[in-house]
């Protein structure tokens, strides 16, 4: 294996991890607040659809990306209503929401041919290896890498972060401290869905494949696994996302890897999923936030 291939695999891997990274960061926020956002796949798909549609209508990639933000917020409100206000089971409704939103035929053939250009960061991109791998990426990738520390600060260095974490660990204590658990969870789910939806849009912006049926191909669920693997810590989540990105990038280089090229393409396509399974198995000691996935009924509400 020569250095060109290695660089290429990692550089492609970083670009490919972008959507999953956005989604995983968003998911981490929701889960920290005690909401298992399994609607993630559907929300990503929505983001991809909106972005592809905007581009097809000639509005440009950035309009498509930005449009995903309000769309994510609206989806977040809808999901929060279902989970927080109606106390619907988060796991089952999330799965239903995600899988029924595949919309199959309805959206078929929204083709897109443009994609975001890579931006070389001056000076940094000249660093051998690292420069080529990290600093010649599309702008959404840089943004995602920037978002990770911001999400970390949000969770650990703001009062809002403190409060939503308490709502995810022991909502009854949050409530007795005079805070509104539903309000905190609503906000967290909306923020979460905005990031996830943006991640879905970035999928279109990066890969230029256009919107095809089920374009996210389980990446939302992969993000769920990455959150567990990254132990709800945005920095570790970057590592988990990179693992996924690289395993996905390998398929593009498989043909140049000689002896491995005899494997059928399906084997390479399944690699990211297998990696994700292994990751979940290895991350066995990870502990979900205590109240994650459990609907909360405020005291004094109708019993």
């Amino acid at each position, binding site marked *: 294996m020569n250095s060109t291939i290695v660089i290429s695999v990692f550089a492609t891997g970083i670009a490919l991890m972008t959507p999953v990274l956005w989604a995983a960061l968003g998911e981490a926020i929701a889960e920290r607040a005690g909401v298992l956002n399994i609607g993630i796949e559907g929300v990503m798909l929505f983001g991809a659809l909106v972005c592809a549609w905007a581009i097809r209508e000639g509005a440009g990639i950035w309009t498509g990306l930005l449009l995903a933000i309000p769309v994510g917020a609206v989806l977040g409100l809808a999901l929060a209503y279902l989970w927080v206000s109606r106390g619907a089971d988060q796991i089952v409704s999330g*799965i239903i929401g995600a899988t029924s939103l595949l919309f199959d035929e309805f959206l078929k053939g929204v083709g897109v041919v443009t994609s975001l250009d890579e931006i070389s960061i001056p000076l940094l991109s000249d660093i051998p290896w690292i420069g080529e791998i990290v600093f010649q990426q599309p702008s959404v990738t840089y943004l995602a890498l920037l978002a990770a520390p911001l999400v970390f600060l949000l969770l650990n260095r703001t009062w809002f972060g403190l409060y939503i974490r308490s709502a995810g660990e022991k909502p009854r204590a949050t409530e007795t401290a005079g805070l509104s658990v539903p309000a905190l969870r609503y906000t967290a789910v909306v923020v979460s869905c905005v990031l996830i939806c943006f991640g879905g849009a970035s999928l279109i912006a990066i890969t230029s494949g256009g919107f095809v049926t089920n374009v996210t191909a389980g990446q939302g669920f*992969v993000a769920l*696994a990455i959150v567990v693997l990254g132990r709800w810590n945005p920095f570790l989540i970057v590592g988990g996302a990179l693992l996924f990105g690289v395993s996905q990038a390998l398929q593009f280089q498989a043909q140049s890897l000689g002896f491995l090229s005899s494997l059928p393409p399906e084997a390479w396509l399944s690699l990211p999923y297998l990696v994700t399974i292994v990751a979940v198995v290895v991350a066995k000691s990870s502990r979900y936030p205590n109240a994650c996935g459990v609907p909360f009924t405020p005291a004094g509400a109708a019993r």
Partner: protein
Amino acid sequence: MSGDAPGRGLLTRALSTPDPRALATGVMALLGTIVVVSLMVAALGEDPFAAIRTIIEGSFGDTTAFGQTLMVAVPLALCGAAAAIPFTARLWNVGAEGQMHIGAFAAVAVALTLPALPGPVFIPLILLGAIVAGALWAGLAGVLKTAFGANEVIVTLMLNFVAILIATYAITGIWPQGVAPSTEQVPDSTVLPVVWSGANVSLALPIALAALVAAWVLMSRTGLGLQIRSIGLNPFASLMNGMRVQTVTVATFAIAGTFAGLAGAMEVIGENKALVTNFSANYGYLGIAVALVARLAPAWIFPSAVLFAALQVGSQSLPASTGIPTSFGQIIIAAFVLGLLGARVIRLRYAEGAVQ
């Protein structure tokens, strides 16, 4: 069993599981969904009544349509059981789609590799192969959960994608048939015979119904079924009372896999006569909705499956008679299930503090 065949009393008892009030709310939710969807159709500039009529006529209008609905209900019902049984134990098997593909793969493998045998021998062998494959594939998720604490939602979902790729490899790599997106055809002796020729309903329907009866017996008449229910409601007390929680967990997944695997096999040796790309119209995922609408009660799974099958089959006639795309059926299903969840018709009980 001795002389006492399951009579009317037993049937009534089997069907009485969901309480009448929930049933009423469910019907209300269905009507509400119809109203909402009608408004959407009207907003698209189409006639909602025509759309509803099209769906009903397309699914129940004549014998052919009804037969088609029943045949779609078969995989939906089996996948519904594959979701309902683990859900009862609060195990989130969302892998019926993959387990079905593995079942289909096993079925086509058995059918194409064994030497020619007469149908009555060959068909059971094929079904058995698919059942075992489905059970092993689903059991893997159970083992990973019990041995490593791996979250079964993620594992079963990921295994879905892997299973679909394995099935794809069978089509593109192992038994390709020219340019067609399918494997070679299975021998004629393996194809399930038609039992109701007017409606083109094959042996798959009685087999599925028998499987659902078995599911009902399992859940309400066996110790394992009681253990599955008990563990779902309170894993702590179940452990304290001597249950082998881990063994039951793996067994529950494996049992779920048998149902999904059976569904996959019957798609291969049914009308398709081969493993075909995209043979599953998301049956595995829709099975979750089927199970929820049946409120996890085995006796209600088939009626629930027929409802979803009718939507699916009926909406295929939509583009021809109206300007509405087929996928509108999917939207109706999603709106219906989310409506039921929002209306709290479908609520699962958890033991306090039992999160994962």
